[in-house]
């Protein structure tokens, strides 16, 4: 397009007037007028004609209205593709646009169509037509110091405005504002889901957060389901184990096992009892044996005493009589004891039968047995206690001591010796009766041919006749008699002290005491064996067992129990033992009495005959031998019994089971039963707990929640993937758009740089200009290798560069066959003389094939520019 004329009506200072500029040529056209002439008005009108709609009443149009108001009319003639056109627009009043054929003045288009025709002519987009390049007056955007932000923005917009005339052309290849909007839409959509660094935001982040939350929820629910399944499995195991534990057969086996162990333990305990009893029997038998042994020893002593007693002549007959009576009595007791013994044995037999029956009926409680046993023990103990009491009583009543006996025996010997001597030396008198009347000697009847030893003082009485008193008159036996009397007195004193009348009584007393001591010892030993812990302990235990026995007796209604039978048997046995003891004692007593009789008889015989026979007559040998044999036999019997008891004890021990093993078995069985019960109880509690947990967990429907969460997670994951794909697609789109725009710019600015280079050379020698790819603004000037930002350059240099840039674009367009007029309004105001000449050179260079319209008030400076200088004609409106 090439401008040819411009007409203004009623524009600003041309109010009510028409101002016309004709003769705009192809090259440089200079409109040089003074200030305030209206040069800028022409520029603004030209701009408004091509870029403002006729219907506009905006600030740009309003600013061109004169103070007197009224409508505005602007018209321009221009050439395009070899044809002349005239474009007119009326603003504010009688608004309209018209396009005429400049040659024929034929109306080509009107109003909107006219404006559309112009828009097509100038290219797409608004504000940046490719059909016009301009530099406004003073619009360089020089930044004052301390400029405010608003001022800075204004100045930045002003600088952009320098290049805005080429923006349309640039937009055509870079996509322009459409590219910007698409890019903005794309970036808006991308920023809605991603940050500039590519991190998810908005819906994408929400989806990711939801995905993470669902993932966590799924993991939790999966864990809970796993716990639930584990709980269900555990409950199944618990129930299976409970089923096994509650199996009737299994429980019966445990119970039977326990029962058998208890029975076996009971038997072992009973066996232990029998062993204890056998041990007691052994002790008793041993003690009996010891007693007999002691008796045998005593017999030997008695024999020795018999030897001493031989000398006892005087009391032998009475003693013999007494002894005979005792013998008879003891014999009777012996018979009685043997009868009792027989009865006892028969009773034992019955008891044993009863025991057998009891054993056959039922198992007796051990407590009753023990009670009976203890009662028996108590009874025995009591007997032995009584025996001890009796023995102690005997001991207490015995005042004689062994010393007394020794002394008395000595005195008796001395007395006997003295009497013997006296008798031997004393005259003797032998009475031979002629009638039945008998003499008395010392109160005793003298038998026929009885020999009477006469001693001093002896009296022989002939009843009814006379009493002879012998007096020896010899001094030689006086001493002996004195001694005899002394000894007798002493002996008597001893006997009186012991409350006895004879040495024999003393011997018997001491013998009884010895026997009592032996019985006491024996009884104590037996008592100790029967009650090692004392009788009180047995009484206490009996009390306990009695109470327990009452309960057992309450339940027991048929026949005697084993314990009773055993007790009865034992009682019978004990009684038998007692009877045996009594029998033995009776036997012993009988023997003793018999022996005494015999001994006394022997002594009497000895005494009857002489001292020598007395010394040799120890009694009836056969009797003594028999007695001793008997005692030896008893000893053998007792020894045998002891051996038998010991053997029985050993047999019992062999037969009995190891009670520790039996007890251990019982403990095992009890522990097994307890363990089963405890396990059953524990499993029951566990089952209850598991049921509660399962009910709670299953009641929450966690499997359903888990499955639902898994599906929701899958859905969200798909949504996340879609966001990712969308972000990738939008990013891809942005990348491609930017790349293509950059490529277009590079493609576009290349030729611009080529056009700009010679122009820069005119001004700055070897220099290069770099453009900002986004703002399409010159940005950096490189001179002599130094890069200088444009806004750091002087105002004049910036001004020059802005114009040169326009000129380069214009040349580019021209080469493309699109001629674009360049309009300069009071440009180069900051250029010095040298630079302005160079600029003029550059302008002229470009004007060779470029239309340049220059408005200036610097008439003298621009006189060197050259070019065509038309005159503006101003006329009043008609």
């Amino acid at each position, binding site marked *: 397009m090439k401008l040819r004329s411009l007409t203004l009506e009623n524009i600003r200072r041309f109010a009510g007037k028409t101002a016309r500029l004709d003769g705009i040529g192809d090259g440089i056209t200079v409109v040089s007028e003074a200030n305030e002439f209206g040069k800028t008005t022409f520029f603004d009108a030209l701009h408004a004609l091509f870029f403002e709609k006729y219907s506009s009443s905006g600030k740009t149009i309003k600013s061109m209205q004169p103070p007197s108001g009224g409508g505005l009319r602007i018209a321009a003639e221009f050439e395009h593709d070899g044809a002349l056109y005239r474009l007119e627009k009326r603003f504010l009043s009688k608004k309209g646009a018209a396009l005429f054929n400049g040659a024929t003045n034929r109306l080509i288009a009107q109003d909107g169509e006219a404006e559309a025709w112009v828009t097509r002519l100038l290219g797409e987009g608004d504000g940046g037509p490719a059909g016009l390049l301009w530099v406004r007056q003073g619009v360089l955007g020089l930044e004052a110091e301390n400029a405010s932000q608003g001022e800075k923005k204004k100045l930045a917009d002003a600088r952009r405005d320098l290049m805005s005339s080429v923006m349309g052309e640039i*937009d*055509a*290849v*870079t*996509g*322009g504002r*459409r*590219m910007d*909007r*698409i890019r903005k*839409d*794309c970036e808006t*959509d991308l920023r809605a889901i991603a940050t500039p660094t590519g991190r998810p935001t908005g819906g994408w982040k929400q989806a990711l957060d939801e995905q993470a939350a669902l993932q966590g929820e799924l993991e939790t629910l999966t864990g809970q389901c796993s716990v*639930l*399944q584990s709980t*269900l499995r555990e*409950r*199944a195991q618990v129930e299976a184990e409970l089923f096994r534990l509650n199996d009737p057969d299994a429980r019966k086996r445990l119970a039977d096992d326990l029962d058998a162990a208890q029975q076996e333990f009971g038997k072992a305990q009973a066996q232990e009892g029998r062993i204890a009893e056998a041990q007691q029997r052994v002790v008793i038998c041993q003690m009996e044996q010891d007693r007999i042994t002691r008796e045998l020893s005593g017999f030997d002593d008695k024999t020795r005493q018999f030897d001493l007693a031989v000398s006892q002549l005087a009391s032998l007959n009475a003693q013999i009589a007494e002894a005979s009576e005792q013998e008879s009595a003891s014999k009777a007791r012996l018979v009685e004891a043997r009868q009792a013994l027989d009865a006892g044995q028969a009773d034992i037999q019955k008891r044993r039968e009863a025991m057998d029956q009891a054993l056959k009926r039922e198992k007796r409680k051990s407590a009753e047995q023990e009670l009976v046993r203890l009662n028996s023990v108590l009874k025995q103990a009591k007997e032995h206690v009584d025996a001890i009491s009796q023995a102690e009583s005997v001991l207490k009543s015995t005042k004689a001591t062994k010393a007394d006996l020794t002394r008395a025996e000595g005195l008796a010997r001395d007395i006997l010796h003295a009497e013997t001597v006296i008798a031997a030396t004393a005259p003797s008198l032998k009475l031979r009766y002629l009638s039945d009347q008998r003499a008395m000697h010392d109160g005793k009847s003298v038998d026929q041919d009885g020999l009477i030893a006469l001693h001093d003082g002896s009296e022989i009485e002939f009843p009814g006749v006379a009493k002879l008193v012998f007096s020896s008159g010899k001094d030689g036996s006086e001493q002996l008699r004195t001694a005899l009397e002394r000894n007798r007195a002493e002996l008597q004193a001893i006997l009186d002290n012991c409350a006895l009348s004879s040495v024999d009584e003393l011997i018997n007393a001491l013998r009884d005491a010895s026997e009592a001591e032996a019985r006491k010892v024996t009884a104590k030993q037996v008592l100790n064996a029967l009650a090692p812990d004392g009788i009180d302990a047995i009484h206490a235990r009996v009390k306990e067992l009695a109470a327990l026995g009452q309960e057992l007796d309450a339940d027991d209604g048929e026949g005697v129990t084993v314990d009773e039978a055993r007790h009865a048997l034992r009682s019978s046995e004990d009684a038998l033992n007692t009877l045996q003891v009594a029998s033995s004692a009776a036997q012993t007593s009988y023997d003793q009495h018999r022996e005494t009789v015999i001994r006394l008889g022997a002594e009497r015989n000895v005494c009857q005959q002489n001292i020598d026979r007395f010394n040799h007559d120890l009694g009836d040998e056969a009797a003594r031998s028999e007695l001793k044999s008997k005692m030896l036999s008893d000893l053998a019997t007792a020894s045998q019994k002891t051996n038998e008891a010991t053997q029985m004890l050993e047999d019992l021990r062999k037969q009995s089971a190891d009670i520790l093993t039996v007890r251990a078995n019982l403990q095992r069985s009890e522990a097994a039963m307890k363990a089963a019960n405890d396990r059953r109880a524990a499993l029951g509690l566990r089952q209850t707990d598991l049921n509660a947990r*399962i*009910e709670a*967990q*299953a*009641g*929450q*429907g*966690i*499997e*359903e*929640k888990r*499955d*639902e*969460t*898994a*599906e*929701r*997670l*899958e*859905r969200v994951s798909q949504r996340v993937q879609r966001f990712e*794909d*969308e972000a*990738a*697609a*939008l990013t*891809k*789109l942005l990348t*491609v*758009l930017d*790349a*293509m*725009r950059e*490529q*277009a710019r590079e493609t576009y600015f290349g030729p611009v740089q080529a056009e700009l280079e010679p122009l820069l050379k005119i001004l700055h020698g070897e220099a290069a200009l770099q453009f900002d790819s986004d703002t399409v603004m010159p940005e950096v000037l490189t001179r002599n290798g130094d890069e200088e930002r444009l806004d750091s350059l002087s105002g004049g240099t910036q001004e020059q560069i802005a114009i040169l840039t326009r000129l380069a674009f214009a040349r580019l367009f021209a080469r493309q066959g699109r001629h674009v007029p360049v309009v300069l309004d009071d440009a180069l105001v900051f250029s010095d003389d040298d630079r302005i000449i160079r600029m003029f050179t550059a302008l002229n260079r470009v004007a060779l094939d470029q239309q340049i319209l220059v408005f200036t008030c610097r008439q003298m400076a621009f006189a060197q520019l050259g070019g065509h200088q038309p005159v503006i004609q101003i006329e009043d409106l008609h």
Partner: protein
Amino acid sequence: MKFSGHANDWAGLAKTILYQRGLRLVSYSGALIVIRFLHSSDLHLGKPFGRFDEDVRAALKVTRQSIVSRLGSLAQERQASHVLLAGDTFDAETPPPRVIRQMLNDVSKYPDVTWVILPGNHDSLAATELWRVLWRDAPKNLLLATEAEAITLNAQTVLLPAPCTARDPGRDLTAWMENHDTGDMIRIGLAHGSIRDFRSSDDIGDTNGGVIPPDRSTSAKLDYLAIGDWHGRIEVSPNTWYSGTPEPDSFKEHRTDGCNLVEISAHGQPAKVEEVPLGQLVWRHLDIDLTETDDFSSIFHDQIPDVHQRQHYLFEVVMNGRQSLGHRQDAIDLFKKVAPDFLHFEVDMSGLSILPDTTDLDKIDTTGALRHAADVLAQEAEGGDKIAASALARLFSYAEGEA
């Protein structure tokens, strides 16, 4: 009632007597029917449907839960004495109490109908807690077939169940049926699992290989073998059937969802099977393979249901093939327009390649950077770059929005 001595009168008399005694014998074609029952399976009560939106999920769950009531109503209406559920009545081994409770309540609503539940692989006997609750709370008209033992359904009919002992029993649980003699009684088998067949498991069912012999009904002298597991109804043989699920739950193509109404007159006589539709919702999967010349809109409109039915549909569209940018955008616009009509509507266009033509690209721009960008993306899309294809589609939509 008049009695003439005619044979029909005898039958009528018998029917009257039997009715009075509570036995359900209803005649058809003049013959006495010994038993009439419904065969269904795979209710999957409590199925979560998590892949759907919350409102769709709720609707699916409510519809599913009402299956039992519908079966009961159908049984009453058609005078069926029994309802046999061949496994997978519940979707999970520990369903929420409300699912179980509501199911039992619905069963008890029809006290004249006897229900039989068989453990399937989803609700096998390993789900001890579930079966414990069922045993505890089951109404009187509910039988739990948890043992491989015959159940007498009526005086002339016996049921031979094969309950699933675990999720994957791995053996033929129906084998015992062969050796169980029931004389002249009608024999009905009830099982859950896959038929051992030459078809793949994808064709047969979702479980691990078939274990039930296809000729089980013959070898065990069954008059009818009711099977569950496959969600679509299949006739394996005239007396061996998968009933399928009565309410669909996936987009797999099935025969009409419902249940079987079965009538048997005597042992050895062929069973009469009637397929009864029962589903309330329809799941429809549509595969569309497009070429450049296909008119997607007409194809699509031919396939979608009437607008008044769509709210009962779950519709899934998978598009494959090639379409221009413009047609693709048209399809997207169409989907956006019809989607709200459906209960659920989803589209998968990942298999649809973009075939950009000059017209589409011109709509973006005829020249300049925009056009160049479109050209670059089109070329990459042609090479199979899906991201580039998506980017090009977006560029097209932006450009269309600018126009």
